[in-house]
């Protein structure tokens, strides 16, 4: 019974890939659950793109088969170097070229063009969004601003089953916003604002990453989109909008924060820290990862990050902070309460 369940699971995976041929699915073994794969679409526009991909792949394989078949035919009837040159022209030559090399490709391409244009129209069509989120690219992290007070970084919560509109721009160089499982990518350019509508019905955590080369740490500029049912989302947003708790037990940690260089760049709403160069830390404790997806958000990693961010993400804007062991502990205690 268990084996049958596993087979069923495998078949479901293959079906999820949208393909009919196990061989092709094997070659494009694209459904490993952990990959942020274009071929495991969970967003409305990503699903359209996925369907278009399989259509184009099948056509491509057919064309490739025809070409390889003709090559094999030519190889099978090969000759030798001293074969006399044949000066005749095959009567089928020109019609063959016109049909196989011009007419048929033109028809196929027109068909695919029409399909792709329909997709483009549908994906870019302006819908009624229930929520608009501003995303601002920085070297090398993502600022996320919700309507109202909520500001966070590198983590975007959205409600499922609704169209969410992202307004995207950059504070410095060009970045590109890409969540392969949800939507096509779109660039973030200083002086311009691009709009991307996303809708998914499937709750989950979707990895995104900067797709436009943006300098030294382009490789470490990831983020996560967390899609959750409306009520969970509302609860999260409400919490996110609130200022940080002022907990007397960790007040000494806040003092460390306010008396060190941290305050120059970071905001913790509800305190005197109002820096804007780095991410807003008001609810740091609730985030999945640190440094734009680079390391997990654990106490040890946070400590490493504060003491020596340059060894983790060389060239990033944050300078190392030298703290005594006691101060560091107090600071970590405090930061961990920020959720």
């Amino acid at each position, binding site marked *: 019974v268990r084996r049958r369940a596993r087979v069923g699971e495998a078949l479901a995976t293959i079906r999820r890939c949208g393909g009919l041929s196990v061989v092709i699915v094997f070659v494009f*073994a*694209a459904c490993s659950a*952990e*990959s942020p*794969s*274009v071929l495991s679409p969970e967003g409305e526009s990503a699903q359209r*793109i996925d369907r278009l*991909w399989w259509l*184009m792949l099948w056509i*491509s394989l057919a*064309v490739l088969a025809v*070409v390889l078949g*003709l*090559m094999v035919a*030519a*190889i099978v*009837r*090969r*000759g*030798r*170097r001293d*074969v006399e*040159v*044949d*000066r005749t022209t*095959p009567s089928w*030559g*020109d019609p063959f*070229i016109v049909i196989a*090399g*011009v007419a048929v*490709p033109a028809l196929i391409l027109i068909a*695919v*063009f029409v399909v*792709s244009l329909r*997709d*483009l129209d549908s994906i870019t069509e302006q819908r009624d969004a229930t929520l608009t989120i501003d995303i601002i690219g920085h070297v090398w992290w993502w600022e996320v601003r919700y309507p109202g007070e909520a500001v966070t970084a590198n983590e975007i919560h959205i409600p499922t089953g609704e169209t969410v509109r992202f307004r995207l721009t950059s504070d*410095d*160089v*060009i970045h590109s916003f*890409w969540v*392969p*499982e949800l939507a*096509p*990518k*779109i*660039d973030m*350019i*200083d*002086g*311009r604002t691009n709009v991307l509508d996303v809708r998914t019905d499937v709750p989950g955590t979707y*990895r995104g*990453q*900067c*797709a*436009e*080369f943006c*300098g*030294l740490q382009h*490789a470490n500029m990831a983020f996560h989109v967390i899609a959750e049912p409306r009520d969970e989302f509302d609860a999260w947003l409400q919490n996110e909008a609130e200022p940080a708790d002022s907990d007397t037990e960790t007040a000494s940690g806040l003092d460390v924060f306010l008396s060190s260089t941290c305050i120059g760049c970071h905001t913790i709403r509800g305190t005197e820290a109002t820096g804007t160069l780095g991410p807003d830390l008001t609810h740091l404790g609730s985030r999945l990862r640190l440094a734009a997806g680079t390391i997990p958000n654990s106490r040890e990693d946070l400590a490493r990050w504060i003491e020596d961010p340059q060894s983790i993400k060389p060239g990033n804007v944050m300078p190392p902070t030298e703290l005594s062991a006691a101060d560091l502990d107090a600071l970590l205690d405090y930061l961990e309460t920020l959720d």
Partner: protein
Amino acid sequence: MASYAERLELVWHEGTGLSAWAGTVDHKRIGLRYLYTGFVFFVLAGLEASLLRVQLAAPGLEVLSPQTYNELFSMHGVTMMFLVATPILSGFGNYFVPLMIGARDMAFPRLNAFGYWVFLAAGVFLNSAFLVGQAPDDGWFNYLPLASEQFTPTLAIDFYALGLIFIGISTTAGAINFIVTILKLRAPGMTLNRIPIFVWGELAFALTVVFALPVLTVANVFLELERKFGFHFYDADGGGDPVLWQHLFWFFGHPEVYLIVLPALGLVSSIIPTFSRRPMVGYTYIVLAELFIFVISFGVWVHHMFAVGLPTIALGIISAASFMVVIPSGTQIFAWLATMVSGRLVLSTAMHFVLGFLVLFVIGGLSGAMFSAVTFDQATTDSYFVVAHFHYVLAGGAMFPMFAGLYYWGPKMLGRLLDERLGKISFWLMFVGFNLTFFPMHIAGLLGQPRRTYTYASGLGWDLHNLLSTIGVFVLGAGILVTFWNWFWSRAHGEPAGEDPWSGDTLEWTTTSPPPEYNFATIPTVRSREPAWDQPKLQGGAQPPEDGGRPLTDGHTTLATTLADAEPQAIVHMPHASPWPLFLTLALMLAFYGVLLSSWMVAAVGAVSSAGTLMGWLWPRGETQET
């Protein structure tokens, strides 16, 4: 006939020694220099790529620092595009265009020499950036504002911008030379519809250069004005627009991609008839397809910018144009297939590379067609899927034909046959290595791996594909080294090639291997599209005068003919060897280094000495008439 050859030998011999070496204007020597220099840069760019792949063999490696990684991938791209693909295909063109059209040299031999020297100097200029540790690090596409003074304050981008302006001089000079040579110096009787397809390919390449390259130069001049003098072409805060750079760059950049492929396709079209033992089926379609690609290449640049956020209507139009480009490529592929199927294929090493090319080019073409669909492009652009695609098209589409060219034309250039067995070993290593390197990248890209990243996290399903790619690079590299070994070994020990080892169809096979400095003892009169097959009297490069051969032994001359019908029109006096092109190059190099370092005195000295050497070059010496 010997008397013609003896007299021509006296007139055309450039001598030996330093002055002949520095001053040569012989298109064959210059062509070989392009090839050798191009392959040196090829090795350099290949080593850069190998280092990149070692760094990416597994997640989180620290073989290269992020900065070094960025420099290496940027220089890999710049080198492959500007210092490898274009020069090597120009090298084949330099060597073989005059031979295939029955001329004694290129139309402007000194400009030709100048083109080579500038290519070498610009290559040195660009790579000297490594010596000062400030190599270009913002990619070959060099987007603003990352490449602005604010975000890249080092000399890296100045090396890039000035280096590309510098090399543009070389490419433009070469292109103009090809156009005039092909249109005016064809042997009598070589009407437009008898021009070998490789020559058409070089013509389409040259036309593309002339229209596309000025845009890159302008873009880089703007960039330098902005970086050095604070202009605001690309600066959003100053009223400029960073997207302007993208438009300018890709308006050049996409034609650039095609201009690399065009002569490579021409090369393939030259090899297929010889080894299919029949004339090309659908010659006219292939020529029209090449010219169509040249035209349409200027209408597709925005498909590199589908994710920029441009108006939907613009995306639709460019998408349509991009789909259209697929058609002429398909036309050529089916014309080649028709020729091969209807003929009797000879599976020489050169033909192995052509067949390998065909497989890779079709795969790359099919994935390329996918990018014409806007939404699919938006999903996969800037991912490894793109890296896979363009290596199939450019490395598969140009590198494999280049190697086919080495095996096909090597015997003509060296006078000795290359080892066919080693050649086939090299081919199979390269073919397997190539697919092992680049095929998994398709999948990594679909799995969401973005390109131009110096590292990646584990647990994202990308590890295996990256490891396979890294292994593949070394198999590919081994295959390449086998051919290099084969080349140098055969150059010394290979069997004599004779005039025509493959019984080829075009004029270069009618003269000796390697050809004499004057190419042909008599300039042939051509009566067919495949003269070497149809006109036995062409043998020895000395068509007898009673059959139409023209000795032209009075002076250092070649024959000019009319543009369409190739009727004899004039006798052209060709210049002799001259060191001035080299001097001018050195003066220009000084000027470019001056601008680079913002030391305006040095730049001024360079500019003034450039003007001076140019005067020296053009000074009338009354040397046109000699015997």
